[in-house]
């Protein structure tokens, strides 16, 4: 029987994988992919709570749809930034992006 807990465990695993990808990968595109994984983990949570929760209105699904749309926009902007960076610096390694160093 697959219940809420199984969904939440899957979502947590997905989030952790995404987080490790976002903080540990060198390649900016891989970082972006990690962020996407984290967003989808959240989506999974929302939909699961919507399905197993007691609330009548499908609020969780609505949130998930919004997040998918926003994530698409985020990917577009993120890829554009990475592309510009690559053109200027010929590199997509995030360790090189340390202009804010104190």
């Amino acid at each position, binding site marked *: 029987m697959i219940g809420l807990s199984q969904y939440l465990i899957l979502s947590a695993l997905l989030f952790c994988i995404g*987080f490790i990808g*976002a*903080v*540990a990968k060198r390649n900016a595109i891989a*970082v972006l992919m990690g962020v996407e994984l984290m967003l989808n983990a959240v989506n999974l949570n929302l939909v699961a709570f919507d399905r197993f929760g007691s609330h009548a209105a499908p609020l969780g699904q609505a949130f998930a749809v919004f997040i998918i749309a926003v994530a698409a926009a985020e990917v577009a902007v993120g890829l554009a930034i990475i592309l510009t960076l690559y053109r200027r610096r010929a590199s997509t390694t*995030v*360790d090189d*992006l*340390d*202009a*804010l*160093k*104190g």
Partner: protein
Amino acid sequence: MIMIPSAIALVAAPLAAFVLIACATRKAPTLSALIAVLAVGASLGLSIGNLVGVIGGSMTGGAPGAFSGTHAALPWLSIPSVGRFRGLELAMGVLVDPLSATMCVIVSLVAFLVTVYSLGYMKGDPGFSRYFAYLSLFAFSMLGLVVADNYFQTFVFWELVGLSSYLLIGFWFEKPSAADASRKAFVTNRWADFGFLTGILVLFSVFGTFDFGQLSTALSGARGSAMLAVIAGLIFVGPLGKSAQFPFHVWLPDAMEGPTPVSALIHAATMVAAGVYLIARGFILFASVPAVMETMAYIGGFTALFAASIALVQTDIKRILAYSTLSQLGYMFMALGVGSMSAGMFHLTTHAFFKALLFLGAGSVIHATGEQDIFKMGGLGGKMKITAATFVIGALALSGVFPLAGFWSKDDILFASLGSGHVGLYALGLGVAFMTAFYMFRLIFTAFGGRAAERLHAHESGPAMTIPLLILAALTIIAGLTGSPWFKSAFGFSFGSFIFFGEPEASRLDLLTAGISTAMAAGGIALAWVVYGRKIVKAERLAAAFGPLYRLLQRKFYVDEIYGWIFSKVMLLVGVIFDWIDHTIIDGFFDGAGAAARATGRKLRLTQSGRLQAYALIIFAAIVIAVVVISTGLLGGTLN
């Protein structure tokens, strides 16, 4: 009352002259002088009108002892009270009563004669216009001080008097000695004025008013309180400086660097008179604190003796007169201190006339000969008859010879000090009278008598200078009579009973005192004649006989040297200590605070690595910690 507008006008006229000369007529010396003479003359006319009015009014109306004055005031600055913080009410007013009316006449009369005299004395000086502008400013300041109806206004004009004396003493500022003297006068007075200012501030904080009239009622309830003693003591420091009493006397002899008519003005009617006038004006305050009165009497007596002894050995004609002023001011303080305000004011009045006369006479001599050392003069009596005759009258008055002005006022003071039980001061006063007669006639026998010095081409001065001398000589002869018993029997009042609004003081002729003081004066004159007139006893042998004492006097008791030492050593050491504290402790504290912030920043900077993923890790870790804390009941969380 017509007196109030005329009192305002008599103060405003010299101010208008000052502004006019400073702004418009500086390029036209003759016009400037004319404006100054007219303005001060107008003040004189108005003052006399007021005095006549006050005499008439005070004689017809009111019981004896009633405050027969009139005053008007306008609010000048008003700060309302907020909560427990008391507000401030400053008023500018005019007070006309016998005291101020008399003083106005003295000030404007002497100022007028000095201004006229200066027409001759200052002729051809490149700063002619500037001189008359300053002179007008000086007259304005002093008249404003005299008519002031509250302590605050008095203080404002008090400082103006200080400023204008600074300008006039340093009139020939290109001479380093004159510039130094003006600075010395100003700084010495600042020390004393600080006491005065502190005093009136304490006065205001206790009584809530500066007004003389309101204070006189408020004071009667506060008699004997410790605060009153503090106030009187602090305010008393101001007159000590302005009237050049020990230990603030050092500026006055040096003030001789100014033009001689200015010396006459400072010594006779303005500046030094301001101190005595302030004490007379606030007499109710001072009289209610016996300790201050005693101090005043003894400081006065000491200064009288101290200055007279220095005057014995001076050779500069103006310095002799300067020390005699110190000595006479000491008499006035003595009179005020033993409780006789009228005797003090009477001596101030008569002294104003004969001291102005003496200074203007000395100016005439200096103008004619270009010489100030009396031992380089000689035989001037034959060449400058008017100057010599008026000078002798002034010297006789100063020595206290019957029936000249000084006789009456000096005897008043001596009698008052005897009457109040100050036998020591009485004897001291008699001794000073002897010394006064001696040093004045030492001057006269040396400068005006004897053989003429050949290289001096002395000549009598012009009418602008001799006419003021003659007027002052006439006043010197008659002014004293206002305090004589004959005047009282003829008119029903005398100087003392007129000026003092408390119980009228009888002016008597105490025959014993009169006899002794006349004998003292005669003795002094005779001794001077023996030593300097006939030269029976050689002055050099006297000097040799009293060697150490003579040197001590000649060096003016080393007071200047002591002050010099205090300022160059003690004050400098204190300054070095404060400098060290400032640079090491205070600067150290603030520099340390800055350095600590900088060092912390340098360390904290290292946390900003610029690695975005590290930032993200920290943010996520923080969120996890926050969630754990919030959701765990054990740690005080609420989500359960």
